[in-house]
């Protein structure tokens, strides 16, 4: 399909703007735009068609099952979209006076209180824009905490698991820490022996996801916590998998000191094709003084922004964070209330049911009950039929399912990481399981059909190597390189004699 720039015609336009009768301004010659930007020129009807057509070439939760492991692709209630669009939220300026923003501040405060209760800790900052920023913020808190204790220089190392998401090590580096990696043991837990070797008085802390990215709850988590607290280090909880344990087990009770929560995962902010998200952090009282400013506080019945936090690390994002995300997540939490536990129970039940249906057909690296997700391996398919996790993923598209996360976590070869979430129906899980089993049969009977998959998407398998090599990252207008134009295959398939 054409790019919107390829549909552009000089002289067309979409919107008409108001033309107040005031003098035309004078822009100093040396600052004036010399050459108009080549933005698309289309009338509104064609703009809407363009993006409508783009949407039909995309797959969302509304389209179907989307078991993308570690991403918690759950239903996004439409009422939340309606509420976030209320003028009182949508058209509110962040510098509006506090007394004229009480509703927004109260909503943020209520959300903070809910996140504090769910994580079992004491203070919350909603400021971080996503999980990874929550991680970075958490590490900054650690530095500030140790600086206060004169240990900042000594404590230069953060321990992460070999199952960790890439953001963990990346955040460690960005925060200026050294990295130490702990192995995973035979049951999928952190290898405690190895951990003991790694942890000493130079250790600032641990970053861990629990349940892990393997979908397994660490059976020695109390021991792990003791090891770090024993040397005065801190524990950071990567909350990406919180959907497994709401109301069931709390990070604070496990011994974690800092938690980030991915609002776009556990609390249903629509993922928007890549974002937005929200990564609030919740901490133990000992860390509260270092939280970003401003803090949203309640005094008697008035809500305020508190900037007076001398020990604060400062600001990690503009203003007070992605408010629209807060509205949706608060609404989601309120739709469950105290029975939020049912959300996590159902997520875990769905995952274990799928696991039960699939464990015999695929390799299961750790034979345990899973939490909200589980990781299979296509190791055997690859050895016996040359079918990789990628082939399975692409073939699932023909069955109208979004593929799981593949090749992560790295400790599992040919990994297929499957997370169904709580909002799926049993029929959907069964249909997906049937497809996964059919694919195993196809791998034996007709591997070609898997290698050539997908067959029913707008494009066949795409050449990612070529993309990286040529690095065409914007439209070139006149000089646009000719990556060979769409062959008019469609119509030929439809039996047209010539590509009409």
């Amino acid at each position, binding site marked *: 399909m054409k790019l919107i720039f390829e549909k552009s015609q000089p002289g067309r336009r979409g919107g008409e703007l108001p033309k107040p009768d005031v003098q035309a301004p004078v822009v100093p010659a040396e600052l004036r*735009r010399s050459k108009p930007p080549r*933005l698309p020129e289309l009338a509104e009807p064609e703009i809407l068609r363009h993006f409508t057509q783009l949407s039909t070439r995309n797959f969302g939760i509304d389209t179907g099952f989307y078991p993308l492991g570690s991403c918690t692709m759950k239903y996004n209630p439409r009422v939340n979209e309606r509420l976030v669009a209320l003028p009182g939220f949508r058209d509110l300026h962040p510098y509006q006076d506090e007394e004229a923003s009480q509703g927004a501040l109260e909503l943020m405060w209520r959300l903070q209180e809910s996140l504090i209760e769910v994580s079992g800790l004491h203070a919350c900052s909603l400021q971080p824009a996503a*999980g990874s920023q929550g991680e970075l913020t958490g590490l900054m808190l650690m530095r500030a905490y140790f600086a206060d204790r004169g240990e900042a220089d000594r404590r230069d190392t953060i321990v992460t698991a070999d199952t960790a998401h890439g953001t963990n090590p990346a955040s460690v580096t960005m925060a200026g820490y050294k990295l130490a990696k702990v192995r995973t043991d035979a049951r999928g837990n952190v290898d405690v022996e190895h951990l003991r070797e790694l942890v000493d008085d130079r250790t600032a802390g641990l970053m861990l996801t629990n349940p892990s990215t393997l979908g397994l709850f660490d059976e020695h988590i109390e021991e792990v916590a003791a090891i770090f607290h024993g040397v005065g280090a801190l524990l950071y909880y990567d909350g990406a998998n919180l959907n497994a344990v709401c109301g069931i087990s709390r990070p604070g009770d496990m011994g974690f000191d800092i938690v980030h929560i991915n609002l776009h995962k556990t609390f249903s902010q629509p993922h928007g094709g890549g974002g937005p998200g929200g990564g609030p952090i919740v901490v133990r009282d000992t860390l509260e003084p270092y939280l970003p400013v401003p803090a949203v506080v309640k005094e008697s019945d008035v809500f305020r922004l508190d900037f007076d936090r001398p020990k604060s690390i400062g600001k990690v994002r503009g203003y007070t964070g992605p408010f629209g995300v807060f509205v949706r997540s608060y609404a989601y939490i309120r739709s469950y*209330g105290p029975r939020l536990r049912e959300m996590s129970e159902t997520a875990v039940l769905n995952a274990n049911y799928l696991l039960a249906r699939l464990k015999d057909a695929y390799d299961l690296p750790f034979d345990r009950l899973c939490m909200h997700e589980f990781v299979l391996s296509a190791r055997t398919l690859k050895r016996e039929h040359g079918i990789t996790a990628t082939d399975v993923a692409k073939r699932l598209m023909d069955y109208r399912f979004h593929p799981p996360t593949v090749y992560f976590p790295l400790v599992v070869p040919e990994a297929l990481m499957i997370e169904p979430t709580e909002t799926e129906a049993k029929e959907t899980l069964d249909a997906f399981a049937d497809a996964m089993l059919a694919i195993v049969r196809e791998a034996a009977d007709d591997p070609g059909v898997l290698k050539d998959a997908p067959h029913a998407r707008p494009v066949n398998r795409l050449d990612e190597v070529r993309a*990286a090599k040529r690095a065409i990252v914007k439209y070139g207008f006149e000089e646009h390189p000719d990556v060979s134009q769409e062959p008019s295959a469609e119509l030929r398939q439809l039996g047209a004699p010539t590509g009409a």
Partner: protein
Amino acid sequence: MSYLSLTERDREEMLAAIGVSSVEELFRDIPAGLRFDRELALDPALGEQELSRHLEELAARNVDTSRELSFLGAGIYDHYVPAIVDAVLQRGELLTAYTPYQPEMSQGILQAIFEYQTAVCELTGMDVSNASGYDGTTVAADACYVAKHATGRPRVVVTEATNPQVRQVVKTYAPGFGLEIVEVPHRDGLTNPDELRRAAEDAACVIFQHPNFFGCLEAAPDLAAAATEAGAIPVAHVDLVSLGVLEAPGAYGCGMAIGEGQSAGNYQSFAGPHYGFLAARNEFIRRMPGRIVGETVDTAGKRGYVLTLQTREQHIRREKATSNITTNQTLLALAGLVYLSWLGPEGLRELGETCMGLGVYAKQRLVDAGFELAFPERTTFKEFAVRVGRSGQEAVRAARAQGVHPGYALGRDYPGLDDTLLVAITERRSPADVDRLVEALTQA
């Protein structure tokens, strides 16, 4: 629980298939002492109707710009967002999708990002844009990270006339990057190129906002030249809405162009979610943070789009990644693309001229009414600083009592400007609105 599908029968069948007798049993791996043994202390569950009523009540306790004539800006602006933007963003296939790891499932989003990258590069005069950063503050920190690795230098210069929000965030990130932040003061609302050059010796980059936080047009080409002479990378923090009338940073030698995208297609929304944009010259392409979409072909030679240059990213490069970002602001960037397509080049120019023209009118009316401009000599874009002869806070309180929010009190960030308001004027304000502002400030 209206979002859950499982019936009692479903549960039983599923538990049987798993081979456990209760849901409780699914959690047997959790050490007994860690099993939460009470109900969460959360506010009562609400059905949709009651939930709506509750949030409507909260929303009603905010005074938004549809209820009060507002001249607030200072980084977040009340520009008009056309209905087509909402219509596109509410398409479920886009709204409820995630990062396009599987390109064959995600050609819609991928092509849209590619188009967004093209629009941003076209506006800024750069070679490459990422798929978005969190907001206009974090992209500044990202730029520092890029510059540090590109130059190996230990400092970053930021002009004092850059949005305080941006400066604060950069300062928070700097220690982790091993960077020191130096600020160059403004002189009557503008940055002095020579001071900048001196400060930029051994700086990795220089970040300057243009139009700056006071709305004044900087001598941007001179600032860029000064930075370059000092061997630092010039980074312009710009407003997309200004780039129909103001020169593209790429055209006057900047190495990177960054900014807050909100003004182009996002609602104010109490500051988020919005999108930050980061565009750069080709030389920095492999140091770019975040997602980048590239063009390629499929097995049939058909054109398609994929996430590319992923070896920069955390999921491949881990601790050596150019950034830790993964979830970004794609949906808001898409809003920006739809908005810019709706405006087109003509519309964008008109928009800039309209805001500027209204600003000139407003400044004149205020001067006529006896107010003094903080920086009378300067050309401003859609904002300007005016002295109100008393504390800005008081002036705001007094004007609001008459239903007008006159702007942002600069005293909070600039001690010398306690009596000064930063007044923003977009195309949503009419000359009549401006007259009401003058009246409110005079009577107050």
